């Protein structure tokens, strides 16, 4: 069997697994966020917080709870790293410097998991397991809470109430992410992923002598890292490390974990707005983009254009033998079209076009299917933009899901859209104009430019993957990327919640013969076009200077 055919079969197996999980998981999540019941352990948690989980919140209150929780999380994670040297259970690792600790705290709370540190030699058990892995759960639960609040905005009328932030946070964590993670972690251990608290110990070697291993709770962190679309590896090599991703089976399973919640959330959306077909239209849109990107990636990586790859006879630089080109390409597309940023192969050593595909995936706003929660609210914003454009063409007031898209709504959607391009292009321009940031580049020419463009694209879109030749552990990159990650995460959330509030207050408009049917393939096609054109126009000049130039030259 040729590697190409094996790659297609792996893709088909992945699609089958995702399809099997789609209905039960989507319906289950809709139930979780609609249920009136509080389980006993949840009541204990609410009592500890001092929250009344059934009290409805309007959008400003929901936002305040979210921001207070996230601010505390950043501060806590920062202090944990700064105090690492003094904390027991840290393997004797020293404390992290202030700029890097800020960067990492911002990164994990913003669901980005950009890492300017060297996992296995910088972070001990306490920070990894008690700090970083915890934010893998909580930042994902925050993302889902925002998505559900927006869906409630569409589903509810004449109220302005969006649910209770604390209840959504706790339920997303304990009812969705935790049970799935326990099962997922055991699957990964069965494949060979590490799970112990052995600390640093010596292991005999073939040619004599020993090697020092850093043990840890790897599988449990690896699972939530993929499931919560976080991406921060226990080890420097991330999911290319055999202890994180030991076999071809674990590889496909991890790709499944990355995609399963974001895709299933479109079903949750359809359920909660009372029309499964609306969910299918969104699913179709995201699936088409994902499949298209996957096909393009497989094509360019198997074609292996580029001087070094042509001499080598294949694009295997930065890729593992057990995954091959196909298993690496599948992973690379899934991780950059969601907000994951885990890598099982190193994007900087992809072909010119391959690197461009990973970048464009993030620049689309990570909506196909996108991060856990953030993917759904991201694509719903694009859906609003698409009905607005359609409305302009026929001169009608646009509506989506029975809600008028008026001046306030379109302003909020437009503000959402502008945040990340402004951060990405602005910071990239400044970094290139200044004399020192360029010293961090490993490669020169178009690829060197791509390293910096990739970094801010990844940071502002909360992805976390890198063209990792860039030495990002400098004060400049730690600080500016930290700022880009926080603004890229929380400013859009402000606009989403404000939009949700304004939608929930509206009275629904009755559907007429002139209403644009947003549950049809035609509309899904319009949505795909809108996404590609809006992003294409925004980023085309920058992409032309980097990956396109590199790809066309080879």
């Amino acid at each position, binding site marked *: 069997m040729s590697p190409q055919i094996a790659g297609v079969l792996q893709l088909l197996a992945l699609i089958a697994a995702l399809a099997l999980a789609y209905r039960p998981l989507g319906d289950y999540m809709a139930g979780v966020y609609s249920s009136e019941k509080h389980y006993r352990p949840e009541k204990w948690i609410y009592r500890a917080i001092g929250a009344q989980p059934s009290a409805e919140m309007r959008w400003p209150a929901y936002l305040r709870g979210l921001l207070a929780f996230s601010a505390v999380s950043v501060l806590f994670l920062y202090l944990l790293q700064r105090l690492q040297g003094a904390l027991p259970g840290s393997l004797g690792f020293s404390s992290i410097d202030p700029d890097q600790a800020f960067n990492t705290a911002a990164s994990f709370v913003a669901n980005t998991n950009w890492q300017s540190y060297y996992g296995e030699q910088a972070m001990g058990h306490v920070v990894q397991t008690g700090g970083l892995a915890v934010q893998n759960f909580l930042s994902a639960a925050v993302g889902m809470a925002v998505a559900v609040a927006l869906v409630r905005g569409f589903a509810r009328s004449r109220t302005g109430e969006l649910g209770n932030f604390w209840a959504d946070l*706790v339920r997303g964590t304990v009812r969705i992410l935790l049970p799935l993670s326990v099962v997922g972690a055991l699957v990964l251990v*069965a494949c060979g992923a590490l799970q112990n608290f052995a600390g640093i110990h010596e292991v005999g070697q073939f040619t004599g002598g020993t090697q020092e291993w850093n043990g840890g709770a790897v599988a449990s962190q690896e699972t939530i890292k993929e499931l919560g679309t976080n991406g921060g590896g226990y080890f420097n*090599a991330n999911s290319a490390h055999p202890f994180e991703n030991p076999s*071809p089976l674990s590889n496909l399973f991890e790709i499944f974990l990355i995609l399963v919640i974001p895709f299933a959330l479109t079903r949750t959306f359809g359920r909660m707005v009372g029309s499964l077909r609306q969910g299918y239209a969104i699913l179709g849109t995201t699936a088409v983009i994902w499949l298209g990107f996957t096909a393009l990636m497989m094509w360019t990586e198997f074609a292996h254009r580029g001087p070094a790859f042509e001499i080598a*006879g294949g694009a295997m630089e930065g890729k593992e033998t057990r995954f091959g080109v196909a298993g690496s390409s599948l992973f690379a597309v899934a991780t950059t079209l969601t907000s994951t940023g885990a890598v099982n192969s190193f994007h*900087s050593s992809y072909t*010119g076009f391959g690197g461009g595909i990973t970048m464009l995936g993030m620049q689309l706003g990570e909506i196909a299917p996108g991060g856990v929660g953030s993917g759904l609210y991201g694509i719903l914003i694009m859906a609003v933009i698409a009905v607005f454009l359609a409305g302009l063409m026929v001169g009608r007031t646009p509506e989506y899901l029975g809600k008028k898209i008026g001046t306030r709504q379109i302003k909020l959607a437009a503000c959402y859209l502008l945040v990340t391009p402004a951060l990405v292009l602005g910071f990239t321009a400044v970094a290139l104009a200044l004399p020192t940031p360029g010293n961090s580049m490993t*490669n020169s020419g178009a690829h060197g430019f791509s390293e910096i463009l990739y970094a801010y694209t990844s940071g502002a879109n909360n992805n976390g993957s890198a063209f990792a*030749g860039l030495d990002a552990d400098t004060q400049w990159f730690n600080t500016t990327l930290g700022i880009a990650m926080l603004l890229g995460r929380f400013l859009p959330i402000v606009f989403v919640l404000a939009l949700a509030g304004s939608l929930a207050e509206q009275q629904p408009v009755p559907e007429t013969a002139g209403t644009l049917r947003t549950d049809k393939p035609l509309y899904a096609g319009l949505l795909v076009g809108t996404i590609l054109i809006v992003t294409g126009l925004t980023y085309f000049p920058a992409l032309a200077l980097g990956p396109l130039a*590199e790809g066309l030259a080879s």
Partner: protein
Amino acid sequence: MTHLPIGSTARLIGAGLRALLVLTLVCGVVYPLAVTGIAQALFEDKADGSEIKDRSGQVVGSSLIGQRYDLPLKKGQETPGPDLKWFQPRPSNGLGTNSVNTEYSLLLSGATNRSGDNEELIRWVRDAKAAVVKDNSTATYEVRPADVPADAVTSSGSGLDPAISPAYAELQVHRVAEQNDLGVEEVEDLVAEHTTGRLLGFLGEPQVNVLELNTALRDLIRDPGGPGR
């Protein structure tokens, strides 16, 4: 947004802190401990790193982690030369050095992150290809540059790739047989035994685990015709 008195902000921050602490207890303490407990009970060997032993019972490493099979460093050399007695793994040019907590010399991972048009990478690939051709050609067996598979001349993502492609393993058979005074067929059989196809016929790529292969090779050299053959 509504005006917020300071007391209410402080209350909110307090609620956020309590939420973080209680959820840290759940996700950062209970969850990893529970998973570790179950994993250690069900899959202890794997959870501890899939260590493997040779026939004498000596631990030789992990079946998941690639190793180097090099000669001792000679004076004036920057990098040690390969010990051609053993099957050679993929290059690992991206591995860093222990730079943060230097009291340890930890197992590190990393990729080169060089692009396809990077001069250094082009040179590494060229040099590696020339070396593979030279090292593996024997009096009776000639390796042509076109025979060298991509994995033999490129570094992996982790730098710890435990496997090579069957093509690269087969290419090394004649050299390994010559170096160890073994028959070519004997070594070929050994490679065939340690070649695994795609899982379920379509998952991943065919591969040869280098540490397992070399361990079996050494067992064979030490005790020809011993158990396991």
